[in-house]
């Protein structure tokens, strides 16, 4: 993996470690309201300033990071598993199974992704799990589509032919021969998808469809501080930086993996 790939995965690990170690790093409770220090600019005591309720922004960023990142990672894991399973079955099975599964995929892909995620979140009600479900319910389809296409191209290759003539069962061919071949593709997609999920999660919490207050997430922090943009810009600035840096790193990581495994993904997905 190239230099950018290494740097971006390093930054991601750093952000994750800092978020997990938040209680050791900042002495403040992320939800503790302090009416004596409302909207203070960054200072030695509050490194990134405080918000409109006097809460320490650094603390909220780190605690919120744990939530935002784990939501995205879990959603990636779920969509990847679903996408692999359905893509493999559909691609290898072919025929009617393929037709049914792929028309379902087409249906989901024909919705504007963000609107569909909003619709699902509204029904499930706000909460961390809601966001995870909404992201994966929308996101698995493009995984499945790409995996299926790849499986179709592998299906005719000699090693699958050989396995079949040796008498391997379909499930053995899928699990032992095809699945490992799909892993690099799945990893590339996972990297790119994680970047997108960070943004979608932020968007959903910005709309108030994410974690319930006062729990901090990066998106909801921006949403709550919108009205103070002129008097306390740091309240908006820092959470956005965190979102952008994390998403950039995931995207660069995805690109680096793409180059490493020499995988082409047509169209942005």
């Amino acid at each position, binding site marked *: 993996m190239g230099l950018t790939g290494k740097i971006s995965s390093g930054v991601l690990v750093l952000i994750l470690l800092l978020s997990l170690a938040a209680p050791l790093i900042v002495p403040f409770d992320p939800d503790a309201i302090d009416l004596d220090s409302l909207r203070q600019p960054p200072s030695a005591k509050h490194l990134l300033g405080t918000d409109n309720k006097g809460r320490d922004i650094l603390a909220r960023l780190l605690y919120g990071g744990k939530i935002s990142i784990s939501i995205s990672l879990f959603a990636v894991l779920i969509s990847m598993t679903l996408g692999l399973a359905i893509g493999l079955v559909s691609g290898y099975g072919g025929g009617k199974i393929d037709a049914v599964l792929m028309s379902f995929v087409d249906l989901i892909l024909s919705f504007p992704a963000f609107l569909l995620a909003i619709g699902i979140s509204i029904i499930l009600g706000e909460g961390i799990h809601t966001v995870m479900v909404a992201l994966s319910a929308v996101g698995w389809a493009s995984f499945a589509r790409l995996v299926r296409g790849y499986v179709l191209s592998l299906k005719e290759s000699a090693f699958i032919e050989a396995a079949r003539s040796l008498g391997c069962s379909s499930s053995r061919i899928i699990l032992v021969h095809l699945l490992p071949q799909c892993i690099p593709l799945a990893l590339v997609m996972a990297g790119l998808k994680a*970047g997108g999920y960070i943004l979608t999660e932020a968007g959903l919490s*910005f709309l108030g469809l994410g974690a319930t207050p006062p729990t901090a997430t990066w998106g909801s922090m921006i949403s709550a501080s919108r009205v103070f943009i002129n008097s306390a810009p740091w309240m908006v600035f820092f959470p*956005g930086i965190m979102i952008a840096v994390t998403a950039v790193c995931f995207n660069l990581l995805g690109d680096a993996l793409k180059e490493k495994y020499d995988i082409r993904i047509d169209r942005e997905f």
Partner: protein
Amino acid sequence: MKGFIIRKLLLTIPLLVGITFTTFSLIKALPGDPVYSIVGERSSPEIIEKIRKEIGPDKSIVGQYGGYIKLLMQGELGRSYFTNRRVSDEIRVKFPNTMRLAFASMLIAAPLGVFLGFIAAKKRGGAADRLITLLSVSGISMPVFWSGLLLMLLFSLRLKLLPPSGTGGIRYLLLPAITLSLPAIATLVRVTRVTVIDIMDTPFIRTARAKGITESGISTIHIFKNAMIPVITIIGLELGSYLNGAVLTETIFGWNGIGRYAMEGITKRDYPVVMGCLLVGTLVFIFMNLIVDIIYHYVDPRVRVHGTDR
């Protein structure tokens, strides 16, 4: 060509059934009486009765879905819980605004994105390429509601050059259009760059060079024309997604389009509004995809010859 369009249109029908069935299921899944999820309790008894007749519990599920389709055919997307206005009327008023914003941002994004992508590809591996690539990765990674707020802070609140929010002429349009164009520029740069690099490696470019055609001639005639095909696709798809209402951007800048309307619906839990926007947005989206497919078919002879089942 005609046969292709007709077949495409026919293929859209099962998709429409799927989409409406999904929104119907979402409405059924909402807490409370589905009738009130469509019109709200403040509606007149006649309207509530009319809706109940179509999708009420005394019908089978299939019958209820049929009733729902019938309501949609009559243009009945429901009534807002709070204003009691018809959602379809509101959307009709707001959609032109969304359209203006979508086209304005594409007007910024398309030339800029294609130009930068082209430069990056021509200087592949060089400093310009790396800078443009980094900028484009940042572009797709910045949340629009954040970049929008920062633009607003700089240009409206500090420099006082443009109004911070509202719907109106070009002065109001500029900031939201720029905000919305950022991710589109980034995507277009990526796609253009990859496409142009691919084309530069093909034998016909080498042939053109061997024939003694100038570099600029090769760029404009051979590369640019061929690169336009996937680029047009992306422009169409991005435009389609903007037309379904840029929820976040419109909200930030108070732009009176269907995106902000959807946002109002979300914050007030005004389900008919949200579901109406979801349905209309999706219809616009698949309509745009259809147009993209047809244009694609039209401009790329290769697709016409052997890729007919795209």
